[in-house]
């Protein structure tokens, strides 16, 4: 009952957030300079041509009127038609979403693995040179932004030692049996490990570039809370039972120490998704972010709106998932 009410109030909050985002995006992209109509017409078009096309896309109406028309469509599931490609925005956006989701989730998993191993190793070897080395590596990882990591990785593993692919999502000449756009996932389900390896090889560097800064944040915070947890009374009591250090870190400390990190991962994951915009461009990866940049360059207003709304939905969704996981891991919150 309480859970239901909490969930309901979260949904209302989400709806208000999405509405706010829609208004801001809608107004902003109409107020800033740049006219989609001018970009669509060939040189030498008459003022009548401009007026006709403007009316065709409804851009002659006031912003409020345009918003109402667009809003009605959205509520009916129609996000409008892309000006550049003349395809429904919803199809375009949903077609690209799987690529970005797979990339972000792969990056998140990598960040948690790297950060987790760094934190656990640092805690196990606290006070030694190894811990100092981990701290220095964390600091370096954190002080370089993801797109610079992308460039460095391209230079190292794409140019100097070409181990991984650095462009696109999959080798175009391959025969693709996919019915969904979740290539990574579907290739696994179809047991096409050849395709899977090719996709991973394409995704590895962009995912790593996104993961490195986040892994440093995770590693630093998790190590900090693990070390604090190691001084607590229940840890001391577990030591007197005859348990070794590894068991104590993994079975007694980790579950409690991971809670603050988890909250942070939720917030940081949304930043990571934001980071895909640049990283996808850098690696010519055909995801939402790459599409967003094209849409902005072409002033494709309906497409920009659709992409931003979708990003907002993902952000609020991630936050909801984090809260639910938090309640699951922390028994004290389960009834609250």
């Amino acid at each position, binding site marked *: 009952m309480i859970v239901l009410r909490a969930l309901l109030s979260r949904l209302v909050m989400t709806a208000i957030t999405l509405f706010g985002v829609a208004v801001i995006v809608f107004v902003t992209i109409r107020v800033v300079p740049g006219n989609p109509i001018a970009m669509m017409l060939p040189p030498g078009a008459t003022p009548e041509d401009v007026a006709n096309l403007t009316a065709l896309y409804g851009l002659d109406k006031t912003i409020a009127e345009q918003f109402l028309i667009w809003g009605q469509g959205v509520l009916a599931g129609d996000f409008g038609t892309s000006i550049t490609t003349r395809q429904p925005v919803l199809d375009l956006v949903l077609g690209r979403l799987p690529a970005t989701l797979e990339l972000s989730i792969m990056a998140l998993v990598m960040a948690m693995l790297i950060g987790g191993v760094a934190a656990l190793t640092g805690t196990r070897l606290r*006070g030694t040179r190894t811990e100092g080395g981990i701290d220095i590596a964390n600091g370096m990882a954190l002080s370089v932004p993801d797109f610079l990591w992308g460039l460095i990785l391209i230079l190292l593993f794409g140019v100097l030692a070409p181990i991984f692919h650095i462009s696109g999502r999959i080798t175009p000449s391959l025969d693709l049996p996919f019915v969904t756009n979740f290539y990574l996932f579907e290739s696994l389900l179809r047991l096409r490990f050849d395709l899977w390896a090719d996709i991973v090889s394409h995704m590895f560097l962009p995912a790593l570039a996104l993961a490195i800064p986040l892994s440093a944040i995770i590693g630093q915070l998790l190590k900090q809370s693990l070390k604090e947890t190691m001084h*607590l*009374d*229940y840890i*001391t*009591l*577990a*030591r*007197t*039972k*005859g*348990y*070794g250090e590894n*068991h104590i870190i993994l079975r*007694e400390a980790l*579950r*409690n120490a991971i809670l603050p990190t988890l909250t942070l991962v939720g917030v940081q994951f949304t930043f990571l998704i934001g980071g895909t915009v640049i990283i996808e461009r850098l690696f010519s990866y055909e995801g939402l972010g790459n599409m967003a940049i094209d849409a902005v360059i072409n002033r494709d207003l309906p497409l920009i709106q659709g992409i931003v709304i979708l990003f907002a939905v993902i952000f609020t969704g991630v936050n909801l998932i984090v809260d639910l996981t938090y309640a699951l*891991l*922390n*028994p*004290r919150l389960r009834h609250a």
Partner: protein
Amino acid sequence: MSFLEIRNLTATLSNGMPILRDVSLSVAAAEVRGLVGESGAGKSMIGKAILGILPRSVRITRGEIRLDGTDLLALPPAERRRRIGQSCALIPQDPLTALNPSRRVGPQITDRLVDILGWTRSNAEARARDLLAEVQIPEPERVMRSYPHELSGGMRQRILIASAFAAEPKLIVADEPTTALDVTVQKQILKLIAGMQARHGTALLFVTHDLGVVSKVCQRLSVLYAGMVVEDTDVRGFFSAPDHPYSRALLAATPVYTDPEASLTPVPEAVITAVRAEVAAADRRAGRG
């Protein structure tokens, strides 16, 4: 031969400051020894040294801790840990922080039995149920499935006591087990520990600053000052005729609960000066200057 024999145990902080000075004491099987002293006298440190949970900043520089004849300090760390886990247990001071908040209570009692002593899970659970009943916890089954935050402080201390006795240890270190509890609960818990100790025949090292508690529970007593044992005696003798001037002053300073108007008696300055001089003399003998 006593089950626990500590000989000439000396420990210092990493900056060289001594915190245990040549401590020797023993606890025979089924005996209860009190360990009293002011805060900072090192009484908890002795318990921690026995159980191998000294803070990293404390180093043992000399001495032996013999459990059943074997010097723990001479064993490799893993072997020492295993031996302590098999034959010793701790009743901690603060029941609110001594249980892992994210694990259910049951596994926190049975884990040692299963992981360290190799019992089957069902045997360990049956044992935990019996012990919880013995510490007068109603509905042991339900309590074992609970998380610590669902239980009161008194309940949690009972659980910790049950957990300490789970593996039938030869020695239990009780580190001020009633200090963090409500006064009304203190008495029950004290009675419970004493009763359990007597039934199970466990040697008990009872660390406390409360001489009233000592008079109720302990047979023998060590008085500590500045990490040095100033008196090692049997409890009856101590309360009728304490030997050391510091012990006498300590006993005189014990507040009388029947008279709330009475002012507290501090340990006289002269006694402090004398006992400090003794500590300094011992340090000189040990060549620490």
